[in-house]
Every structure is written in structure tokens, then in C-alpha cells.
């Protein structure tokens, strides 16, 4: 037994009470089992927070016989499994980096002082299919922000430590830890019960029954009660076992290749074990010099290249590496079978950025790659940047892929034209 220090305690606090994010107790297929059967649909949305240099991404020619651009080169072995889309944007979403908040929500004017966000694509889906897995959704990040927002517009805290994520998904604690966990779940239930009554009391004294903060208080307590109840059940079900040692976190943020690779590996395992079906991932990017041959300048800085050719070349080295990692991950999903299909066919993936041009902080003509899922891929889908359909139309297509009956989502009014389901 070692002496737990205060910091290590805090680092583990998330594990200690790392409740599965469940909101229903409905009996489910494959409860607690690693191998689901049948047609299980999933979603993964990835954001490159510092943008993707689109001249190196978008092919000149639209349609199926486009010539591969430098960034699409690593994806060519899977050419039939993805579509590169140009010209899209979220209508009224501006504000440069602020637009990251609206990447999966489509909420207008994120840079404005009065901005309030709306629900993100994954959370919208989680409300409907999240209860089917141990973890309803995962909001992952290679930095400090997540892409996921609740119905009230509250950003979910990101999971950015692979070690903690691994523990949450795959490690059963010791008997003493499990007992402690169970005690906390039980106490949590009693406490939430009390808090619900107290909230009613406060609401009564305030005298405004429709008050938003109190409503949210209520809803939060109720949802947490449901999740605690679910947690109690899941706590008695062993977690799926994977053939991998618990990972060590990579503290050197300049090693973005290592960090991204590790996160991709865990995403793969989470999908393969059906621990969750909805994942968002805010990728690496920040003001540091990435460890990569030929790059000696700060990444954020390079993205503000100001058209300097030297900077653009270094930026391209980084972004090509990002694309290589993404391609490798897709390849792995493609090789893994589930029933008669590959995991890639079961998982609708969007990889892109909220920045169309990082150097000018523009939020139009976004770089978007749609990969996997049941779609007719293999093309460059080029929209006129002057009058594009909303990016949320792609989200509607993805919701339908998941089997969620939705004809609209945020600014999306239909499925995305040109991307037919297969």
C-alpha cells in the first residue's frame, strides 16, 4: 500500500466515481458483453481545432474521378470508404476559434457575448440510443475542451487522459474499491433524493415555477438519479477485457503524434467492445512546437501562416501527419469485422474543422471528410461556397444512419444532398 498524495487522489477522483453516463435501465442486448451482434450503428466526430489547410485537401475536380491531393494521399487505399466535401458551412456560425463551440451544434454566432449553445449531435443521439451501452457517449479531447454540449448548452467536461478513459472502460477495481464505489453510489442516490426535495422547496419560496436555473437543477438531479441507478447495475457487471496494458498518459503535449495515436487506439477499443456508440474527439493543436521532423515553429503560429510559403510547408508536414494517423485508424476499423460488416461500415465518421481558413479565422468552406457508415462514398462532393447547404444536413444523414428518426437537426433541414445512403 502506498501513501496516496493529494494530487494523485485528484487525478483518480474521476475514476473513483467515474459513473457510466447512463440514463435508462431498459434491458439491452449484450448487456455487459463485449461482442454485440447484428447491425450496430455508431458515430464518431473529430475536429482539428487549428483548421486544415484546404488547398492541400480539396481536389480541383468534383465527382468520383478526382485526383488525390497531398492530404488525401494517405486515405487512397480506402478511397471508396470516404467522401471529401468542400463548400459547406454552418449558417451564421462565425467568430473564428469560438466556432469550435458550434462545430457539432450549429448554434449561431458563438463569438457573441449573448451566445448560448444548443445540444450537440452526439448528445442528441445519446438521448435516444445512449442507454444501450455502458457509456452513453464519450467526449474525448487531446487538449482541454470537448465538442459535446447538453440540451441546456452546457459543455461536457472532456476526457483527455487515456489512462483514466481506459480505467473507466476496461478496469474493474479491487474488492475494496468496488465496495467504496458502491457506497458512493448508494450515498449519491440518497443525497440526490434529498436535493430534489430541497429544490422543490427553494422553487416554492422563489415563487416562479418556470425558473430556468431551478428547472435545470431538477432535470440534472433526476438524470443523475437515473444514472446512479444504472451505475449500480453496471457496477455488478464485469467490464469487457481487452488485450492491452493500461496505457500511460503522454505528458509531453508536443508529442501530438503519440497522443493522437493512443487516443485513436482507445477509440477503436471502445467501438470494438461496444462500450459506447457515440464519440466526439477534439484533436490536438495548440501553441507549442510539435515534435516532428522538419517542424521548428509553434503550431498555432504556423496556422496563422499569413501566406508565408515557408510556414505553409511546415504546417503541411503536421497536417499530413494528422491525415496519416486518421487513415491508419480508418484502416483498422475497416479490417475489424462485426457480423458481416466491417466496423468502419458501422461507424459514420466526420473529420474536419470549424475553421475554413485558419489564417484568416474564416468559418466558411469548411474542410470536411465523411468516412464510414452506410453511404455511397468515393467522391469529392463539391458545393458552391457561395450558397452551400448547412453542415447540419450531414448531421441529419448521420442521425438516420444511427437509426434515429430525425428529419431536422439545428440548422439542418434534410439529409445532405449528394451523399446517398447505401
Amino acid at each position: 500500500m502506498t501513501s496516496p498524495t493529494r494530487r494523485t487522489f485528484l487525478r483518480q477522483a474521476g475514476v473513483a466515481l467515474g459513473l457510466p453516463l447512463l440514463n435508462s435501465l431498459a434491458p439491452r442486448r449484450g448487456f455487459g458483453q463485449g461482442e454485440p451482434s447484428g447491425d450496430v450503428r455508431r458515430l464518431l466526430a473529430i475536429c482539428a481545432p487549428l483548421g486544415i489547410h484546404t488547398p492541400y485537401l480539396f481536389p480541383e475536380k468534383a465527382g468520383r474521378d478526382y485526383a488525390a491531393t497531398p492530404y488525401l494521399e494517405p486515405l487512397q487505399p480506402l478511397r471508396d470508404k470516404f467522401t471529401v466535401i468542400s463548400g459547406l458551412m454552418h449558417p451564421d456560425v462565425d467568430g473564428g476559434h469560438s466556432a469550435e463551440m458550434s462545430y457539432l451544434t450549429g448554434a449561431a454566432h458563438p463569438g457573441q457575448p449573448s451566445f448560448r449553445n444548443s445540444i450537440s449531435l452526439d448528445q442528441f443521439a445519446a438521448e435516444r440510443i445512449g442507454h444501450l451501452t455502458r457509456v452513453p457517449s464519450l467526449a474525448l479531447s487531446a487538449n482541454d475542451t470537448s465538442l459535446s454540449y447538453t440540451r441546456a448548452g452546457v459543455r461536457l467536461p472532456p476526457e483527455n487522459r487515456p489512462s483514466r478513459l481506459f480505467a473507466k472502460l476496461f478496469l474493474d477495481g479491487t474488492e475494496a474499491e468496488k465496495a467504496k464505489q458502491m457506497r458512493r453510489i448508494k450515498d449519491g442516490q440518497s443525497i440526490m433524493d434529498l436535493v430534489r426535495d430541497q429544490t422543490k422547496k427553494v422553487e416554492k419560496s422563489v415563487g416562479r415555477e418556470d425558473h430556468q436555473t431551478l428547472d435545470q437543477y431538477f432535470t440534472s438531479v433526476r438524470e443523475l438519479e437515473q444514472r446512479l441507478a444504472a451505475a449500480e447495475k453496471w457496477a455488478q457487471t464485469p467490464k469487457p477485457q481487452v488485450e492491452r496494458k493500461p496505457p500511460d498518459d503522454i505528458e509531453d503535449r508536443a508529442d501530438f503524434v503519440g497522443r493522437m495515436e493512443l487516443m485513436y487506439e482507445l477509440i477503436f477499443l471502445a467501438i470494438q467492445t461496444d462500450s459506447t456508440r457515440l464519440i466526439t474527439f477534439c484533436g490536438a493543436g495548440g501553441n507549442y512546437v510539435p515534435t516532428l521532423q522538419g517542424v521548428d515553429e509553434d503550431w498555432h503560429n504556423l496556422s496563422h501562416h499569413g501566406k508565408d510559403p515557408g510556414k505553409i510547408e511546415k504546417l503541411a508536414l503536421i497536417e499530413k501527419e494528422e491525415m496519416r494517423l486518421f487513415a491508419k485508424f480508418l484502416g483498422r476499423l475497416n479490417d475489424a469485422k462485426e457480423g458481416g460488416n466491417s466496423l468502419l461500415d458501422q461507424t459514420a465518421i466526420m473529420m474536419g474543422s470549424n475553421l475554413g481558413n485558419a489564417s484568416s479565422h474564416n468559418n466558411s468552406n469548411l474542410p470536411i471528410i465523411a468516412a464510414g457508415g452506410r453511404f455511397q462514398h468515393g467522391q469529392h462532393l463539391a458545393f458552391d461556397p457561395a450558397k452551400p447547404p448547412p453542415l447540419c444536413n450531414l448531421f441529419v444523414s448521420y442521425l438516420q444512419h444511427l437509426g434515429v428518426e430525425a428529419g431536422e437537426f439545428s440548422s439542418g433541414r434534410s439529409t445532405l444532398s449528394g451523399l446517398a445512403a447505401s
Partner: protein
Amino acid sequence: MTLRPFIAAFLAPAALALAVSAPGAPVGDPAIAAFFESHCVKCHGPDKQKGDLRLDTLAAPASRDDEAWLAILDVLEAGDMPPIKEPRPEPAKVAHAVAAVGEALAAAGGERGLALRRMNRVEYENTVQDLLGIDTPLAELLPEDSSVQGFDNVADGLGLSAILMERYLEAADAAFDGVIRRIKPLPPEARRALAMEQKENIASVKENKGGTIQVADSFVKFTPGWPPARLDPAHPIEDGMYRCRVAVWPHDPSDRTLVIAAYVGPLFGPGKRDFAGMFDVTGTPEKPRVIEFTVRMEAEEAIHLEPWVFPEHITWRDKDEPRPGIGIAWAETYGPLDQDFPSKAQRRLFGEGESIRLVEGNPIWMRHRKGVKEHFVESDAPREDAERIIREFLPRAFRRPIDPEEAEPFVRLTLERLDEGRTFEQAVRAGVTAVLCAPQFLLVNRDPEVDAYTVASRLSYFLWSSMPDGELLDLAAQGKLGDPQVRHAQVERMLRDPKAERFVVNFTGQWLDLRQIEFTTPDKKLFPEFDKLLQESMLGETRGFFRHILENDLSVMNFVDSDFACLNERLADHYGIGGVKGHEEFRIVKLPGDSIRGGVLTQASVLKVTANGTNTSPVLRGVWVLDNLLGQPAPPPPPGVPAVEPDIRGATTLREQLDKHRNVESCARCHVRIDPPGFALESFNPIGGFREWYRSLGEGKKVEGAKVNYRQGRDVDPTGDLPGSGAFASFAEFRQQLMGREDQVARAIATKLLIYATGRRITAADRPAIEAVVAKAKADHLGLRAMIHAVTDSELFYLP
């Protein structure tokens, strides 16, 4: 002319609203109706509805939050409308229309949102720490809060979710752990390490790693990087508070003042290092300077020492001077200083009665001590003690007295744990956690009426970002906080308290965006002189400047222009001001007459957070000035407008691109006021240096006499035309124009203070209340302290 509803609103009582909603208000105002009729309806009427706005059918404001009317008021006041191509209405008529719409909005009433909100995570940490007497970090356990109107304590931005609720359970658990000290601390002792007795340092010197050498008995380090100065024997062997001392001296500094930055944290591997301070390095090898700081450290944590050398010395380039470095002779820690066992926090929560005991539990393995056992709290009278603890804790946590019945459910929950066979400590833990998750704890302004206790909390969350202390609560109990004099004396006391630093840091962090200081790292080739020392100094300057104005109740107009600055040597050098020696201490310096500095717009911190590291954008800086100093936030660009793209190759400037931009009418109406402040600020580069030409990585002349990678690009053109104030030829002239807008600046700053103080959205409908604050402060030379007092007297401060 047909009488359309909108215009009718100003004319006919039957057509309601604008002029008649307040009883006794003058009925009808043909002048206002005529104003809209002649300047607006052409484009926003039956024929055209630009921006989807049709004024002739627009109903009078239905509530104080009527968005259409608020927007109309904004564009009128800012002068964005009518568009520049149209005839300008006389300023007096605009002012009249603005006032009429403002009054109509204020009179429209409608339910104002409540001030009721949850604490943000900073307030949560402060409150729980102050409540329990612990220093456990808690904010990092909670998700980030979002900001509304620029502040993260505004009700609308503070949503709740199940995830947040779950984190509150965890944070309460962590806080409870912080209350109980599990192991009896060792008696305090000094642990000392002589640098040149460490084998790692000896090896580093032997291999000349990172250039390290030995001089006298010291380890001389030249860079912040590898290899670290190893001082392992000084590391504490147990968690606690430690007084650290380090002996350092400057090695070949030439005419520099060298700095050593100290951090504490894990020796290697994961975990964060906490900044303990930066210190000037003086003395000699024989008589080094001994720097001292007191910090919380965990067992085995290290003191990390980084030399910060400015100007930078590059060995292959600067062959003419010896390499400057820092000699490190020894380091020492003394502690643990906190010897209480049981801890003070435990005695405070559990009480000191005889029935409460700390008893030994499981053995715990420690490298340096044998037979140590963890302790836990036990009681001889568990039911009585548990009930007493929860009953005593509740009113403090809820920040007001409570009825005995209100305590019942909390007591019951605690006792039920005992009934279920839980330990005494587990039962109290559950009870305390329940209190810390209750709405009465987490929500502020939760009471329907603003009574003395609410006032106590409002004062404390404004100035301390935390709960009220005993004195405030006592005054509330005595009913004295209704007396303005008592309140003012409290505000003075609170501002003198060290906790007021939270106000300085949180308010400047958000009003002046200092929280963004690390968001970009300036380009190394363009700005080789940027270093960590400069960044740290930037924060020191602006916080020190704000503190000086606050402490001395100087006019808020000093934020626009001041004849003093708050500098250390690094910044004085950056600003070209002589005679300031030493980086450690920031001092108030009278600015020379020919200095361009003075006011926040010339401070490197503000100039850095409004740039992106590589270049500056007049648009971003212009928007910043409008919002933060002039109180006129700019609307977002219309959809589909291509953004201007910076070009650092030296061929074009953003200004040229913006000139094109402004020829487009839809852009011009806002850019005509956005761009000019930004143009004036082009005189400053992204790290706050003054410039007359842009640095370029492409075209340009060679820079004479400097060994730099950049070239001399195009000249800066800081001229512009500020609507309402006229043309300016330089930044200094522009700043003079701002000084002429005293009322507007004062209103902008008063509004920021009101948002922060009340935690609610402030809109144009609050204009009369804002004016009242300004008027009160004006009667007292617009002093910042006077303005803070006026804010705490404002009617907005007392709304439910």
C-alpha cells in the same frame, strides 16, 4: 401618411406603448415619430425590409428584453444607422430618439430574469475552501463555465447538467478528504541540498551538458532546459506547507539583471508544476542571494529552477560576451509548517468536544517512517455528534440562519447512514456532501426578497468571489447592512482584505482578457525578443496598474490614458523607458513626457491578447476597444462575408484589404467605427512593442545593425477617422479623442462592473441605473473606488 402601428406608438395613446405605458407619461411625441419616418422607414418599411426589419408594423416593446428594440437602440446609438450614404440626422435628434426608445424599454417592464444563479467554479472553490478552512484545489474537478457578456458569473451562462451534479458529488468528497489529516506530521525540520554534492549535477558538469559548469561550490545553469539542477535531498518527505530557500548568484551577467523562476512539482513525469515566483538574482558566489517562498508541497516533490536571461544570449552569435548564467549554491526546505493534528479544519467541522477522537486505522506504508497508521474520526456519541455537526454546519454553508426544520432532512440522511451501520466518519461525509449539493448552498441570490443576508452575500461574491465572512453575517444579523455608511465601511474593509486580490484577478482577467495571455505564442522569427519573462511581466503590469488605481481611488479615465505606468525592468526596457532596475518588483513609474505609453491600450498584455502572435488585426483590436472601453460591442459580420486574410510576405497590409472592405456598404456601416481604433493600435506589434514599420518574413529591407531574421516591411499607417471625433494622425491623437469621451468611457466601465457585481445581463433598458452610477462616481472625480461604491448603492444591486 397612414398611421402605422410603429409610428403611431409615438403619437396616439390608443396605439399604446412607447409613450404611454408609464402612467402620467407625456402622451405622444411627434418629433420621434417624424425621426423614424424620415430616416428609417425607407429601407425598413413597406417597400423594403432590409435585415428582415420592418419598422412600420413593429409593435412597441413588449418587454425590457425586446430584442428588436434593443438592436434598434444599439445601432442608433453607435451611429451604425442610418447608413453613411444616407443623410445624417442631427446628433441631438439621435440622442433624443435613443433616450425615448430607452425609456420605452425601461417602462415596458415585463419580468426581469432573476439574479438567481449557481456559483461558478472559481466561486465554488473559494467558498468551499473558506467554509471548511482547507486548501484542496477543487475548481479543476468541475467543468469550465461559459461566459455571457464577457463574464463567467452571469446567471444565463451558468447552466446545470447531470454531469455537473455528478462532479459536485465528487468535489464535495474531495473537500471532505481535505478536512481530515490522516497522519500525524513529523516535527518540522530543515532539509538542505548542496548543489555540487549531487551526483547528477557533478555528471552534468563533467559532460558539460547544456553548457553547465561548476564555479566555486555552485552549479551554473544557462538555460531553462535540460539538465535540471538536482537538489533531491531538499525534497520534503511528507505533504505539507514548506518554507523554501534557495541560494543563487549571477554568473557573467554583463549589464543584465538575471531572473530565476521557481516552480514546485513532481521531479519527472506527469503532473503539473506550480509557479512559485520569479526572483532577481543578485549577490556573489561567496555571498549569494537567498530567495525565500512558502508553498504547499507533496512528498518527493522538487523545486525546479529556471534561469530567465534577457536579453537572450546565443552562444554562436554573441561571441563577444561571456555566457550569462545562474549559479545555484544550495536549496533548503523547512517544514511541514502546519503542525496541527487533528487539523484545524477538522476541529472546525467536527468541533472540539471530548467525544470526538482521532483513532488509528489501517497501517500505511511510508518509505521513511515505520509503523505509521492512518487515522479516522470516531465519536463516543455518534448520533448526538453527527446531528450537532450538521446543524452547526448548515447555516454557515447556507450563509444565513435557518429554521430547525430546514435542517431535519440533512440530519435524517446523516443518521440513516449510522443506522445502516456506516462508520461515524462515513455518515458525516454523506451529510456534508448533501449540504454541499443542496440548492441553498450552490445557488446564490436564491431568496425571493433581498434581505440583509442576501446583501452580505452580494458584497462578498462581488469583491471576494466567495461567501461572506463572520463580520458581514453579524452585521446582517443586526440589520445594519441597510445603512449605506455601514455598507461603505464594509466595502472599504473588504477591499483592504487580501481576498480582494480575487476581484483584481477575476475582473481584469475577464474585462481586459488577461486570461487569454497564453493563448498564442508569438512567432520566434518575427519577435525573437519575446520570452517567458516578458509574458509574466505583462500580467504583473496590468494587475499592478489596476490595483494602484483601485487602492488610490484614481479616476477610471486612467484606463484610457495615464501619466504613470506599473513597470519592472523587463517592461521598461520593452517600452524604451530608462531607470528601472530589477524584474521582481513592479513599481509605479512616472512616464516621461515623450513616451507613448499610458492607459491599458498601451500595455503589452492587452496588445498581446488582441493579436494572434504573428500579426495584428485592426478589426479584432477595434472590436476590443469598442466593447471594453466604449461600451459599444460590434455586431457579427453578415453571413457570407469573406474574412480579410493576413499576409506577412510584406506585399500588402491588412489596412489595404480593409479599405476595400469598407467600400462595400453592408460592411461599411460597422467598419467605419470598428476599424479606426484598430488602425491607431497598429502602432503596436503583437507583443506590445511600438513600431513604425511592420516586420516581414518576405519582402523588405535588411534591418540595419540588428542580427534578426525578419526584414523591414511596409510602414505603419496609424491614421484614421473616428466617427464623432474626427481625424487623428497618430495613436496619441486617437487616445486624446477617447479622453474627450469621458461619459462614454465611464459608462462602459460602470456597465462592466455592474455585470460582474450583479451576475446578470445588463442591457440598454438599464441605462438609467448605469447613468446613476456614473453620476455618483463623477461627483467623486470618477474614482474607481468611488464607482465600486456607487455600484453597491445601485438599484440593480438590490433587485431580486
